[in-house]
């Protein structure tokens, strides 16, 4: 064995690789953590493992600057990062090892791309000399994540780290946000950089140039259609929240006096109290919003993408209406619904430019049409749901009581299924940026880790997760993460011992052939206690108020299980393949 003359170690055999380089040179792992610090990262959700150990060794030195939160499963890290990103408007960070660590992130990454959530996932990879050899815990995570990331990149040389991390952040948060995955081989984490660490934030890329300010002629064409319209109908989506355009949206709505409806992910951007707010759209949205979609003469769509759960049968969807589509992603224009006046740009910028061009207007008469449908919906669905005669509690009562107790200002994180739709229907959102749910992907198990991530991001706000008994068991292990953090995340399980939404479909469309939807559940409160989290089961209506009060008063994490009606259905409903105007009330 040859020794370098400069070597400081004199014991004869070098046990450890010895740095002989100038002291200012740092290794890839330190370069990574320093890059994250410069990007303003204060929180990482992660899970260690073999191929990411050098990074974990580096984090040990930066614990005062960066708070690393140890999740119990990498999927939990991904959803927590999503919840964090959604509530803060910043980028969520996940750290995981190669192979199974990285593949466990996949569901969360897929969720983030379809819901436009900015996330940087950093995963370890086997040493570059082992790439392609089926080495221990080697997965081609680059290949796996191509279709579900906004960008991915594999680093094999520590010198690349500052530039690639800067690029990753720029890509994740700019334009239409999305997840970025950076795969770093173990040798790149360990090796010293060959040059001093210099970090330059990325502000521009030649090949990626998202348009923020729309073209003036596009805005003018949109304004013309809006000013000519007799029955305009505004749809706002997640893009409004992402662009922080709530104020501009409100100014626009008030000046033009248009009725405004939300998509699922747009909820809370306009307060339910606003006179122009007419409800939400889609499969389980409101009666009037769906029916009148087919009798407006103009749709003004802002930051939404005409998901099939919104449009129903496209061939019978708003055929009579012209469309103004304000959207930052040019690929969304004409993708589902042809736009007569596309406006490609950031929702806030677009609204700012549109505002002086649109006329003040009065659409009171047109808006009153929604009220007629509201009255029917109220009588047939809402009132019976809120004041039921059933012995068992109904989901709607729980949500509305919670809504009243939190004044409609809590951060509500709903999982996926009937309880999610009930939350969207019955929580009365009065504060912007208050609803987090998995919209596009419909990821069961999302809410528990996402609520935790949201609480980390907004510790001063009340964060309540609303979860079904099926969903809860998909990421139940994150109770451990929550308990260890001590953060007072409030968890409500609406337990009907069924996979309720699937059961509803089987009842309505499969002749009640209940195929594998009934659950024999564990004792959730005992499980929570095992994790060190207090809880309570509420089975009687008389106990609901006190139970919610107790949960909300807790300064620690708290689990409230509510035993609800086993076979209730969510209505209204636009069955798959039906036309929005044919929405069913029963």
């Amino acid at each position, binding site marked *: 064995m040859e020794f370098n003359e400069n070597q400081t170690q004199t014991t004869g055999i070098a046990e450890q690789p010895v740095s002989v380089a100038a002291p200012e040179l740092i290794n890839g792992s330190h370069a990574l953590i320093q890059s994250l610090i410069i990007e303003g990262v204060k929180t990482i959700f992660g899970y260690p493992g073999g191929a990411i150990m050098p990074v974990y060794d580096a984090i040990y030195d930066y614990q005062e600057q960066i708070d690393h939160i140890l999740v119990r499963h990498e999927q939990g890290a991904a959803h927590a990062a999503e919840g964090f990103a959604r509530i803060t408007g910043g980028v969520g960070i996940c750290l995981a090892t190669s192979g199974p660590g990285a593949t466990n992130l996949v569901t969360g990454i897929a969720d983030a791309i379809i819901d436009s959530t900015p996330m940087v996932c950093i995963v370890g990879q086997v040493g570059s000399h082992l790439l392609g050899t089926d080495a221990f815990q080697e997965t081609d995570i680059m290949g796996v994540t191509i*279709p579900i990331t906004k*960008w991915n990149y594999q680093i094999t040389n520590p010198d690349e780290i500052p530039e690639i991390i800067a690029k990753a952040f720029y890509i994740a948060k700019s334009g239409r946000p999305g997840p970025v995955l950076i795969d770093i081989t173990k040798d790149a984490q360990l090796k010293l950089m060959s040059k001093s660490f210099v970090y330059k934030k990325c502000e521009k890329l030649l*090949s990626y140039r998202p348009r923020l300010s729309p073209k003036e002629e596009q805005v003018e064409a949109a304004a013309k259609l809006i000013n000519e319209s007799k029955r305009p109908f505004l749809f706002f989506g997640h893009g409004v929240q992402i662009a922080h355009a709530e104020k501009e949206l409100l100014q626009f709505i008030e000046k033009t006096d248009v009725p405004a409806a939300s998509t699922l992910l747009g909820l809370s951007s306009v307060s339910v109290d606003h006179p122009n707010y007419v409800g939400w759209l889609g499969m389980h949205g409101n009666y009037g919003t769906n029916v009148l979609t087919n009798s407006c003469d103009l749709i003004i769509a802002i930051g939404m993408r005409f998901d099939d759960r919104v449009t129903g049968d496209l061939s019978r969807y708003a055929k009579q209406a012209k469309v103004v589509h304000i959207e930052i*992603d*040019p690929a969304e224009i*004409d*993708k589902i619904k042809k736009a007569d006046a596309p406006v490609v740009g950031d929702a806030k910028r677009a609204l700012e430019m549109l505002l002086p061009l649109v006329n003040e207007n009065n659409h009171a008469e047109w808006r009153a049409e929604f009220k007629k449908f509201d009255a029917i919906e109220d009588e047939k669905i809402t009132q019976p749901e809120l004041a039921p005669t059933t012995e068992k509690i109904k989901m709607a009562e729980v949500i509305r009581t919670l809504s009243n107790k939190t004044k409609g200002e809590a951060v509500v994180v709903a999982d996926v299924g009937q309880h999610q739709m009930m939350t969207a229907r019955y929580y009365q959102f009065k504060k912007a940026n208050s609803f987090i749910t998995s919209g596009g992907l419909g990821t069961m198990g999302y809410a528990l880790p996402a609520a935790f991530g949201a609480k980390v991001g907004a510790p001063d706000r009340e964060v309540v997760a609303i979860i079904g008994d099926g969903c809860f068991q998909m990421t139940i292990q994150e109770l451990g993460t929550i308990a260890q953090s001590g953060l007072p995340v409030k968890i409500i399980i609406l337990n009907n011992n069924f996979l309720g939404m699937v059961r509803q479909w089987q009842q309505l469309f499969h002749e009640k052939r209940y195929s594998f939807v009934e659950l024999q559940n564990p004792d959730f409160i005992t499980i929570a206690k095992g994790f060190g989290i207090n809880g309570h089961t509420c089975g009687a209506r008389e106990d609901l108020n006190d139970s919610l009060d107790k949960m909300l008063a807790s300064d620690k994490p708290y689990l409230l299980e509510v035993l609800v009606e086993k076979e209730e259905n969510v209505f209204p409903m636009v069955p798959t393949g039906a036309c929005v105007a044919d929405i069913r009330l029963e």
Partner: protein
Amino acid sequence: MTTYTICVFTENTIGILNKITTIFTRRRINIDSLTVSETERKGISRFTIVIRHESREAVEKLVRQIRKIIEVLAVFGYLNDDIAYNEIAMFKISTPIGAKPLDIETINKVYKAWVVYWHLTYVIIQKTGTEEEIFEFFNYIKPHEILEFVRSGRVAVSKSPQTLVDYLPEAEWEYYM
């Protein structure tokens, strides 16, 4: 079915082919031919992808999705009339002793094809042209027994006077060589 030629300009880095083709796969669009090479600009690759599709709208949507790939600088979709295009084909033709001799004059003058390699029992003929021209020659040469036949993907250049530099004026590029 209409033939579309999609030209994609990208940064020349590992994995871009995968990022592009997955967009076709997801939409169940089959690729008829694909050619990649570095362009006149250093570090910039050009993909020429030929597909057939009945819906122009679907092809336009496909082009917009390709444009979303971060490493992609520009994407253009063309109809055949918009471009000058060609392919190259090679034929290995059996020429056993005693067989009918090849009419080299016709091959050269009529079909603009060239023998590029002679062997005792076969020759290799190279033919450049459009798919139609190549298949015309294929039919002509068929009676001689084709031992092997291979076609390249299409290469195409737009008839428009604009070049990539016009679309990306801020780029500072060096020539490839």
